[in-house]
């Protein structure tokens, strides 16, 4: 098993791979990091030249073609937006900017009040159009997608077992179960064993380790921020686990249960 770690996506991304030869594993890990960098280059809200920033500036004027990965993430986000009765909404970005959690996007038009993910048209040919000016932030899902993309790249390069962890959003694969630990939300310098996971993902949302202990999950309906503590979700894919932590933090118990069942996922409150 070899492991590498690089600062990407605003956090530490660690990739582990087991393979018959260390050289093969090292090459596969390079490809996996390249996939993570590509997701960062496509979906960063902070980077002016990302495809997402270009959409935020111009997709209300005409449909724009985007990379298939961005289109796929937007389709999953739109689906989760419908299924969660609007609780998962990447169009929440203006509120995050207002709260000082995201920088103001340079050159983007003022977003239309009340714009939601419903105002995003996902068209044939990997094209996207906004029905009105709006700002999308994929912070609640893109990190998980980057983990999935890295795992796919490891597998495509012949790695049979491994793990990818993007600062706490992780996915493991291989024949053997791997132990998953949770950072204690009350005391981040402590961890505890959470369970054993084979071929699956775990993501956690919580208020700790953010500047000034602010929680970056905001209820699109305008209510108060959710309770403190952390919520972990186990799912097949890390993008789904990542997104569902936000939904479970905000949704009434019945809706959470229905969504978790739909995605064959489990929530573990801390």
């Amino acid at each position, binding site marked *: 098993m070899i492991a590498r770690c690089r600062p990407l996506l605003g956090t530490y991304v660690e990739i582990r791979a087991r393979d018959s030869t260390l050289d093969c594993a090292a090459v596969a890990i390079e490809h996996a990091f390249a996939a993570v960098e590509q997701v960062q280059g496509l979906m960063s809200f902070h980077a002016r030249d990302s495809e997402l920033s270009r959409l935020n500036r111009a997709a209300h004027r005409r449909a724009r073609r985007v990379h298939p990965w961005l289109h796929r993430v937007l389709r999953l986000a739109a689906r989760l937006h419908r299924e969660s009765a609007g609780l998962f909404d990447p169009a929440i970005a203006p509120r995050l900017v207002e709260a000082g959690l995201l920088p103001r996007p340079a050159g983007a038009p003022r977003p239309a009040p009340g714009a939601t993910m419903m105002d995003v048209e996902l068209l044939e040919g990997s094209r996207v159009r906004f029905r009105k000016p709006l700002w999308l932030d994929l912070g609640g899902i893109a990190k998980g997608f980057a983990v999935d993309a890295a795992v796919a790249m490891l597998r495509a390069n012949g790695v049979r077992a491994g793990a990818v962890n993007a600062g706490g959003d992780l996915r493991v694969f291989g024949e053997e179960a791997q132990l998953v630990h949770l950072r204690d939300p009350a005391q981040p*310098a402590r961890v505890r064993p959470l369970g054993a996971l084979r071929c699956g993902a775990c993501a956690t949302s919580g208020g700790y380790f953010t500047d000034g202990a602010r929680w970056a999950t905001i209820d699109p309906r305008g209510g108060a921020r959710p309770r403190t503590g952390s919520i972990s979700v186990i799912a097949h894919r890390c993008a789904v686990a990542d997104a569902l932590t936000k939904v479970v933090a905000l949704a009434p118990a019945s809706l959470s249960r229905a969504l978790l069942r739909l995605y064959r996922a489990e929530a573990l409150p801390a």
Partner: protein
Amino acid sequence: MKWQPFLGAPLAALSVSAYATQYFTVEQAQARMFPGAKLAHVPLQLDDAIRGQLHDASGIHEPFNEDGVWKVDGGGWFIVDKVVGKHEMITYAVSLTASGAVKDVEILDYRETYGYEVRKPEWRAQFTGKTAADPVKLGQDIRNISGATLSSKHITQGVKRVLALYLLVLSKQ
């Protein structure tokens, strides 16, 4: 996907465990970042004025590792430094092109010290028995830590300091 949670048994004891991973030795990182190149160690002695400017450029209080600079034969630099966060200590390497642009950043080692929560022995035995087909060793294998995102802003500051060092010192060598 197969998930077997540890169910909520009361805490029995607390022991301390360190999560530490070494990804690269300095030599391995040099070989990856500058394959086949010859590197010459360049020990630095920074005066207070330079130290002050490095601090202003990066916001980092800890002194720069004056023993961590190598010049690459044929152009470029290899720098090893440390950052200390609230809970973590990280050694990282930065490679620069001959004109002082960042080529790569690699984490060499990452260290966090944890208290490790150990639950009741009978409960642990139950877990071990159930997963005979999926052997997992409790307490020995802290690898996959989930949690709200750990920020890498200390490394961002560290890279800023390396770039300031290049402008102030290395580019004049």
